[in-house]
């Protein structure tokens, strides 16, 4: 383990994990929140009630979420090839990771907003607020802790998924663990990488909890 080459590998793998998780998490936030919001506000009895959008959106998300990630990754290889120009490396892996993360987070966003008191939404309507104001001043701030917790769960899941992405050449810490620890029977390497992953997950969880707590009133 005091092999400098391995340390280099580990750092490189960590960086790749950061890329994969960072890119897909960012996309999950940027696209998952609007998508989750759309699912919520098109529900029955809400201000943008629309059965078709709600059903189609929910169905697409369910299809993505019920597909095992490895299968999704393989299915999306042609798309990856077109978008990134290659199917190997952390950026290529980010494509399927992002698709999975957006669908995953959108559902968590929807259920976090579900927790907002309908009475508060009604009060905003009674004040004459526009849908945009209800979203920015009621739905999002009121569900902030839930959105943060959902983000944490998504990030942790992504760390796990990114290990699978490694199987088809995505790289990352999980990939390192599988290549050295599993294929080469270097148990100590595997242990180190697992410890690194645990620390990573702990850090993400603590940071997420901190953010959620800040929004809690």
């Amino acid at each position, binding site marked *: 383990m005091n092999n400098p080459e391995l340390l280099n590998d580990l750092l490189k793998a960590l960086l790749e994990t950061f890329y994969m998780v960072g890119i897909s998490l960012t996309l999950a936030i940027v696209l998952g929140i609007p998508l989750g919001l759309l699912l919520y506000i098109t529900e029955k009895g809400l201000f943008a009630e629309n059965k078709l959008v709600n059903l189609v959106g929910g169905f697409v998300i369910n299809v993505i979420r019920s597909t095992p990630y490895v299968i999704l990754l393989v299915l999306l290889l042609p798309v990856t090839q077109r978008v990134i120009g290659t199917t190997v490396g952390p950026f290529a892996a980010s494509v399927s990771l992002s698709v999975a993360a957006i669908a995953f987070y959108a559902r968590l966003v929807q259920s976090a907003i579900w927790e907002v008191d309908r*009475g508060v939404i*009604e*009060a905003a309507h009674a004040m*004459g607020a526009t849908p945009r104001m209800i979203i920015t001043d009621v739905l999002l701030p009121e569900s902030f802790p839930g959105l943060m917790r959902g983000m944490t769960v998504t990030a942790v899941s992504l760390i796990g998924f990114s290990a699978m992405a490694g199987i088809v050449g995505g790289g990352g810490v999980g990939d390192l663990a599988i290549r050295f620890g599993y294929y080469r029977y270097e148990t100590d390497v595997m242990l180190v990488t697992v410890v690194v992953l645990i620390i990573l997950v702990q850090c993400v969880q603590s940071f997420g909890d901190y953010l959620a707590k800040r929004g809690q009133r």
Partner: protein
Amino acid sequence: MIDIQDVSITFTVGDKPIEAVKNASIHVNQGEIFGIVGSSGAGKSTLLRAINLLQRPTAGRIVIDGVDVTFFEGQQLRELRMHMGMIFQQFNLIRSKTVFDNIAFAMKVAGASNDEITKRVRELLDIVGLQGKADAYPGQLSGGQKQRVGIARALANHPRVLLCDEPTSALDLETTNSILELLKAINRQMGITIVLITHEMDVVKKICDRVAVMSNGVVVENDTVLNVFAEPKHEFTRQLVNHSYDLDLPQRLLQEQSTPVWKIVYRGPAAEESVLTDTAHKFQVKLNILHGKIEYIGDQPLGVMLVTIKGIPADVSLAVDYIRSRVYHMEVAHE
């Protein structure tokens, strides 16, 4: 000022239509406090929501200051709502915003500038007695304080009407009284018309000028509070009023009575006169008061008394006639 004309509201639950409000007509005058009372599920909350169209009527019209608003949409509807404050049983404050920001939100909706907001919020906090609470979060306030924030928020855009949905039902008795006092002061000092729904007759008695009684989606009574209390016409109203008077006699006492128990209702000046003493002086009868109460509704006294009158039948009958001539209403309550 508010005219609810023949409004019906039907919901579809599953595939069953449920008529929450049936042909309700109510007229609310400028500057009064109008109560809508009824048990839960009577449709009063639905009817209140029809006024600012949170609930659109299935049939009938809502006319405000002569303008038919029933089919208002979009910006027109939002502007109508901006000038109608509303408060709720569960207060419905934005938990993630401070007291200041909760009130500011209502003003932001109406397009107020930051300077206006800062000035007006301070003014409002003075009115509702929450000076120094601007930076508190709703979670740090008591129920009464939360309702005060709700009231401040509802008043933010200088509304002419304040709709109150069971404003005191989540509060204890003492807090209820202080909130009712505040609502009354707002009505009297700012001339804001108030429409209030409640299931408690006591609330009606304390602050309403006129009241509509709802039962199973139908407005069964609609009169001044004094009239409704003095002479409830509908069976349901009678129950409500009796319940509010709490003039039930124990069964044991009723069984012991050999003569009828009379219910005497006084109202106006007669309630301040000594009718029973005069009767006892004039006739050879013994009057026994079993139960009684004088209430002041607005500043008008309204008294109810349960008495027995004993003596030879001729005297009793003379005494009854005499009392009847001097009080508002007299009837046999128990044979």
